[in-house]
């Protein structure tokens, strides 16, 4: 660690400079509706080559008489509007985005290009299989790669995101238990789990039973053994856990479950710590989901789209969602809808195909050596941050970190500064905050995941910023508590937003 961060100036200073950022003006921009004026246009339809119709007489009662209040603008105004809005966002393209659990890695641009190739982007989902062999081969290759990477036997790409993958995976668990004569009643979930896990179990009709973490933040084997019974359908486990630690007794966990006829579900949100180093299929996992928008570099896009493939062992294959990709004897591919034991469909069509293309492009760009190096660099970066911050921030679990490190705000709270304040102050130093107050087993958590995409220089700037903030907490805690000071807007009133919700623009008349 070599760089020193300059301390950002106090509030009201006109110019803020650190090692990473300097303030500059951004454009003001109203809502698109406020810029509209009647008669402006940004479109031109070609002349109609068939006879025009009278919509009112054709549709009768069903004709729309009052148009929706959509804005009317010219093209340049639209470009400026959305470009100005974009400059108000932080992004991976601007710098480190250390959101733990979210895996904000670089999104390669070739992925965007190939997803827009005409024959792929314009393929209708119902076109005959004979005209879709190109995309079916892409899907097939991605499936085979993901099966190899996870060490599982089979896969469905249909789920639209991670939580949707969890839903699909737990349905497979349920269908299998039903085929054994009893769906069972409960799912075990560690208290360190993502919120989607219990929400998913509930949607699948299961009761959630909480599993308390042990002193290392991992699964307590004694408690687990006590809690598994004939009513336990599965354990939903994130591995590495949300504190970034590998469950080193994972095989015993799997054995305990299997001995009682329960299954092991793995939340693959942290799969980026394992790719090329170890395979869940080899350590006893029965079913898991992947997040293509985390491990496989498809862009987060401000909150989506994602893609949540579900990989599983052979015995769960009959239950996969309909349809399943199959191959004819001549090598051509087709969708198989004849799946009598299937859990059904979880989404229309076949899934977020555009994301499959991007994920496969990423795998091709890396190859086996690149995928392994990627994992190693992600783990190296997290440990480098840990090493350089553990003297100033409390490390609640001393167990070795994989791809992310979780500190707590214990020392800073003594000065009245909480994790959320430190996070906001990071913004002034030019970084996106880490994940705040999660996992729940760490009070006041700072969950930091650098990913492999950060250079030593960027890591050092981040470390310097965190160290500078720790010093500010000691010397000028108010500066931290009132951060950020350099953004377009200061802290927003969330209470007001929730108490009297304004969820849409309305014309003032």
């Amino acid at each position, binding site marked *: 660690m070599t760089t020193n961060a300059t301390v950002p100036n106090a509030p009201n200073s006109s110019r803020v400079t650190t090692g990473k950022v300097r303030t500059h003006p951004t454009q003001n921009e109203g809502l698109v509706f406020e810029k509209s004026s009647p008669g402006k246009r940004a479109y031109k339809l070609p002349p109609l080559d068939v006879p025009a119709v009278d919509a009112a007489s054709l549709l009768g009662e069903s004709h729309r008489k009052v148009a929706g209040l959509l804005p009317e603008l010219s093209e340049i105004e639209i470009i400026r509007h959305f470009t100005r809005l974009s400059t108000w966002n932080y992004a*991976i393209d601007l710098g480190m985005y250390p959101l733990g659990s979210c895996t904000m890695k670089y999104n390669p641009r070739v992925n965007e290009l190939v997803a827009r190739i005409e024959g*792929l982007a314009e393929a209708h989902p119902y076109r005959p299989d004979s005209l879709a062999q190109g995309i079916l081969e892409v899907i097939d290759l991605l499936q085979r790669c993901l099966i190899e990477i996870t060490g599982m036997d089979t896969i469905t790409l249909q789920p639209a995101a991670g939580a949707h993958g969890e839903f699909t995976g737990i349905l497979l668990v349920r269908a299998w238990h039903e085929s054994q004569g009893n769906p069972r009643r409960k799912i075990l979930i560690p208290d360190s789990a993502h919120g989607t896990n219990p929400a998913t179990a509930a949607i699948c009709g299961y009761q959630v039973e909480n599993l308390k973490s042990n002193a290392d933040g991992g699964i307590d084997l004694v408690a687990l053994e006590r809690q598994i019974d004939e009513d336990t359908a599965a354990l939903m486990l994130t591995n590495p856990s949300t504190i970034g630690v590998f469950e080193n007794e994972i095989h015993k966990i799997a054995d305990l479950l299997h001995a009682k006829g329960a299954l092991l579900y793995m939340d693959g949100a942290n799969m980026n710590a394992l790719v090329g180093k170890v395979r869940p299929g080899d350590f006893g996992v029965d079913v898991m989901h992947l997040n293509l928008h985390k491990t496989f570099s498809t862009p987060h896009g401000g909150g989506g789209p994602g893609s949540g493939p579900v990989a599983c062992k052979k015995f769960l294959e009959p239950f996969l969602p309909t349809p399943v990709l199959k191959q004819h004897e001549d090598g051509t591919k087709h969708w198989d809808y004849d799946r009598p034991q299937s859990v059904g469909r979880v989404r229309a069509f076949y899934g977020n195909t555009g994301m499959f293309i991007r994920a496969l*492009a990423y795998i091709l760009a890396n190859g086996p050596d690149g995928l392994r190096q990627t994992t190693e660099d992600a783990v190296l970066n997290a440990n480098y941050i840990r090493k350089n911050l553990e003297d100033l921030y409390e490390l609640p679990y001393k167990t070795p970190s994989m791809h992310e490190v979780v500190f707590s705000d214990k020392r800073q709270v003594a000065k009245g500064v909480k994790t959320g304040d430190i996070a906001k102050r990071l913004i002034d130093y030019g970084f996106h905050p880490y994940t705040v107050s999660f996992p729940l087993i760490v009070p006041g958590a700072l969950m930091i995941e650098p990913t492999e995409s950060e250079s030593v220089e960027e890591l050092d700037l981040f470390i310097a910023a965190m160290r500078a903030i720790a010093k500010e907490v000691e010397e000028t805690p108010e500066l931290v508590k009132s951060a950020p000071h350099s953004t*377009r807007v200061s802290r927003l009133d969330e209470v007001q937003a929730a108490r009297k919700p304004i969820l849409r623009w309305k014309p003032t008349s």
Partner: protein
Amino acid sequence: MRYLPKSPAEREQMLEEIGAVSIEDLFSTIPAEYRLTRDLDVPRQHAESEIIDYFRAAGQKNATDYASFLGAGAYRHYRPVIIDSLVQRGEFLTSYTPYQAEITQGTLQAIFEFQTMIAELTGMDVANASMYDGSTGAAEAVMMAVRITGRHKAVVARTVHPEYREVLATYAKHQAIPTTLVDYVRKTGRIDLAALEAEVTEETAAVLVQSPNFFGTIEDIAAIAEIAHAKGALLIVSIAEAVSLGVVRPPIEADIVSMEAQSFGVALSYGGPYCGVIAAKEKYLRQMPGRLVGQTTDHDGNRGFVLTLSTREQHIRREKATSNICTNQALVALMATIFLTVYGKEGIRELAEHNLAKAAYAAEALSAQPGAELLFRGAPRFHEFVIQTREPQELWSKRLLESKIVGGLDLRRWYPELGDATLWCATELITREQIDTAAKVLAAGLVEA
């Protein structure tokens, strides 16, 4: 590896600083017997040019030069160029869910604009930030109605997209929501109102219909709403073709609208990613699934936007959340927002009218051929229609393919009672010449059949 910003020497130096002898030290918590000691069996590292070549070849194998009359929940409309220029800006493309409002005002304001446009178009009070797609959105809407009414049954029109119904069945099974189907009137393709009335009871949480429905027919929403509301059930209207709202009366009598917004500037992309969205009457706001953006002010009184009412969501409520949804379709919703801004108030109507005209012409041209009949003439429709042929469709569809035309979608899988019936769609991108050619090729064999 070209995406990794480190030199070998830097890696060594970092390891040294950490106090590790080799990178393997950092993986020592993984039991040795499970560690992978070989390369993954995936394709070797490819150059960027090779990746492009691979996908171009796949695209060409897919065949690109066909005219297509396929619709059925996935529609080919023109996508203005600036959509891709704008959504590929790194600040939109590579940012996360806007939890940190101070540095994500761009995404937040764009979503607020999206919510406003969807509310305006659907005639609802509020709309959320998006759902995965139209099928899961419809299922989530039914679950929402169950929570609101405290009832547990759903009545579903058979003219709702069959794959949407399949998805609903998957969700409903485990939520213990019994669903019953209501058939359509053979002459109009509309839901059978008498059968609906008989089916809706005091236990019905929701009636789910689609309009324009799977056959392209526009339902009588006011009449359906009356039947549902008379028994205290909610009406959910699913809209698979969002462009229809430019010219079709919005379902203002509905309580919840679940829409697939793919038509608003989103590529077909072999079925996804698309953009679902749920809109509803304001009084049902607190039971909505998914993210919501709300307006507020900062400490200095500036207008700003935040994610709000998150106590409904999984990261706060866990198993008691309104849904398990987390990631949604934000970037796709942005595409729709830009599309709607480009077309605007007048453009969306004009665009919808072009679709109406093309479909009217196509329906008449195709059904004018002897041996072909246009079904459901008794009700208004938007840009899809059903043609029944005397000649088995395997024969004429083969002839069409030879002429580089993909004809209508086979309906026998879901509606065997209609015989050789196919669902055709004509958007603004279909030309008169393509329609005339299709009619001619269709006619060639119909006469003999």
